[in-house]
């Protein structure tokens, strides 16, 4: 049978620490070299979008993958991170007189401008606080109810943002600029350290790429540590058997809340990066479809798997930015040339149909098909996490276990 052999091979790869480290090293080097090998703003633009997606996917993975909580409104935290950046690093909130004018923080007639690198933890903390606020009353609900409630949060947050502009129905001052976007968001300060020159103030995409890459690498480090810690273990225990976990001394709601807040924090990173790079934010960027895309990244890539969701984020980014549009125009062009050469008949009709086929707008359907197919055929995702791979294939796990038991008894001569 092919399956256990393949799984055993994957197991062997996973067990070989040095092989994994070598592959990781090569991947990191390749990532750093990418802009040099493929310069050009279009390619890097997509890569930068992918970076934000990867951060978001890593964050949602903590909630859905590690803690097993289905969050259908994750874009809410993305919005909160982005809008925190918009409010603390732009001209949105200006005071009449200069209140503070230090190099790290300025509050005055030109708005609030917090240093970007300080803003990173601040945006994360703000998002995490919202995570705690949303999660505290709701995280003890059952999985499906929690899913709907998070969906609700995902709907409410953009709605509230949309309605907190000028002349809003609450009678509050303009906080989020309402239906208009907040523009003029700061970029990070230019970095000139020795040979390193990252100019953010211009139009170049490369500095953003490197900034994003560093944030992602640090995030991966943090998340991996968390997964392998006592906290990570308690997440798995809760997923496996909540009652037994509680009886082992684990505070279920508190542990889930930690996962939720951490997930929100990474969304905050992503939101900050996005807001700063694009320079503006609008509530439209954070609707339900965005929450769905992030979920697709996690499910497609591999629920609970750190390399998996990274792949998922990259795939979804390139799908939407590059592959679907290319496929779309290819089909459309083929269709119109076909129709051009055969103005009547079946070929002509087929050509006309293909010429007008809206491929790009079918993205939600493609996402839907991906979700259904993955769940039916390969629930562990493209790059499954080891535990889950066995969870979803009990027959394979059974075979592996019997192999293991056999090997053990042979080795020790025990029965």
């Amino acid at each position, binding site marked *: 049978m092919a399956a256990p052999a393949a799984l055993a091979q994957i197991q062997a790869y996973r067990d070989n620490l040095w092989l994994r480290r070598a592959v990781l090293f090569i991947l990191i080097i390749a990532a750093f070299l990418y802009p040099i090998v493929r310069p050009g703003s279009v390619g890097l633009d997509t890569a930068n979008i992918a970076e934000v997606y990867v951060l978001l996917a890593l964050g949602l993975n903590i909630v*859905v993958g590690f803690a097993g909580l289905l969050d259908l409104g994750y874009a809410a935290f993305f919005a909160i991170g982005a809008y925190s950046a918009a409010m603390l690093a732009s001209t949105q909130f200006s005071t009449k007189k200069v209140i503070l004018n230090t190099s790290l923080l300025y509050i005055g007639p030109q708005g609030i401008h917090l240093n970007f690198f300080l803003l990173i933890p601040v945006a994360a903390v703000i998002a995490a606080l919202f995570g705690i606020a949303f999660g505290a009353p*709701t995280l003890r609900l059952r999985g*499906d109810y929690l899913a709907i*409630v998070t969906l*609700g*949060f995902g*709907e409410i947050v953009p709605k509230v943002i949309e309605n907190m502009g000028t002349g809003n*129905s609450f009678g509050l001052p303009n906080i989020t600029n309402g239906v208009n976007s907040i523009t003029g968001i700061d970029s990070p300060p230019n970095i000139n350290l020795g040979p390193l020159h990252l100019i953010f103030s211009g139009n170049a995409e490369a500095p953003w790429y490197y900034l994003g890459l560093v944030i992602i690498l640090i995030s991966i480090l943090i998340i991996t540590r968390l997964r392998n810690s006592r906290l990570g273990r308690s997440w798995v225990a809760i997923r496996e058997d909540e009652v037994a976990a509680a009886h082992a001394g684990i505070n279920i709601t508190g542990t889930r809340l930690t996962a939720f807040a951490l997930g929100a924090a990474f969304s905050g990173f992503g939101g900050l990066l996005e807001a700063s790079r694009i320079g503006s934010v609008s509530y439209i960027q954070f609707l339900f479809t965005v929450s769905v895309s992030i979920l697709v990244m996690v499910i497609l890539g591999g629920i609970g798997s750190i390399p998996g969701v990274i792949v998922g984020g990259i795939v979804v980014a390139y799908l939407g930015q590059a592959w679907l549009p290319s496929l779309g125009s290819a089909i459309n062009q083929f269709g119109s040339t076909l129709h051009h050469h055969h103005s009547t008949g079946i070929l002509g009709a087929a050509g006309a149909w293909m010429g007008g086929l809206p491929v790009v707008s079918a993205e939600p359907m493609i996402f839907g098909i991906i979700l*259904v197919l993955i769940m039916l055929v390969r629930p562990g995702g493209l790059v499954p996490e080891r535990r889950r791979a066995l969870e979803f294939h009990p027959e394979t796990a059974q075979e592996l276990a019997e192999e293991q038991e056999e090997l053990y008894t042979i080795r020790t001569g025990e029965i």
Partner: protein
Amino acid sequence: MTVVANIIVGGLVLGALYAIIALGYTMVYGIIELINFAHGDVFAFGAFIAIPVGNRLVNQNSFTVPVATSIIAIGVLIIFAALACAILGVVIERVAYRPLRNAPRLAPLITAIGVSLILENALSQIFGGQSIYFPVLLTTSNYSFLGTSISNVQIIVVVVAVAMMLALDLFVNRTRLGKAMRAVAQDREAASMMGINVDFIISLTFFIGSALAGAGAIIYGMDIQSIGYSSGFTLGLFAFTAAVLGGIGNIRGAMLGGLAIGLIQTWVDQLNGGTAWYDVATFVVLVLVLVFRPAGFLGTNTPEKV
């Protein structure tokens, strides 16, 4: 006073619509503990495919319809939509949910979202991204009621909703098949050991729930008169909230919950005049109910056996 009357009438009618959709949600949740996210989209599907058929049955250019044509058109469309939705519902269950019956809880939820996305996008691709109009099937006439007016269409909505609830209630509580459904809802394994064909019963549940949604779609079209590709999902969520409010798995609860949500939404909507806060209000209600009284009005809390 007219404001209150308007809220009552509006809330009643809207609530009846939600109740119809909620019935399908509550039935499916009661039997397999799944929030069928695609249910709202099945509802929308019913409305969408009924439109071209309806346009052939009535004169599209006139607001008055002869009574005989009305009866025929409404009857045909209801049967057509109910059947179409029922088949769609059963197919979805067979393809996307049944294989995952023993999978971890997250899995069918995710496929449900996936199916919902597919349906919505399909509707959007086939029928376009804008809302389209439902053909007029009935000459509207208004009656005075509680100081405000209510139309015959609105009365039909309420009557149909109540009739559906009564019929379903009767079916579930008085027939053999209904008893089988209740058994499967309580304990699937035990029911199958008693000789009940669980697969068939579950498919039947989806069939009935989706058929009700399909019929409801025609009623909806008669009242609201337009539908967009994403209307189904949103309506579905509100209907699900209604089902939870009334007590998930409980048929009468779905009716009660639908009424409550309809009234709340109508009230909130006229409070702020213009700003659409009713969806936020509905979700706030959902969160409050789930946090403070997850069993809803008429539901029972079933604790897990340790």
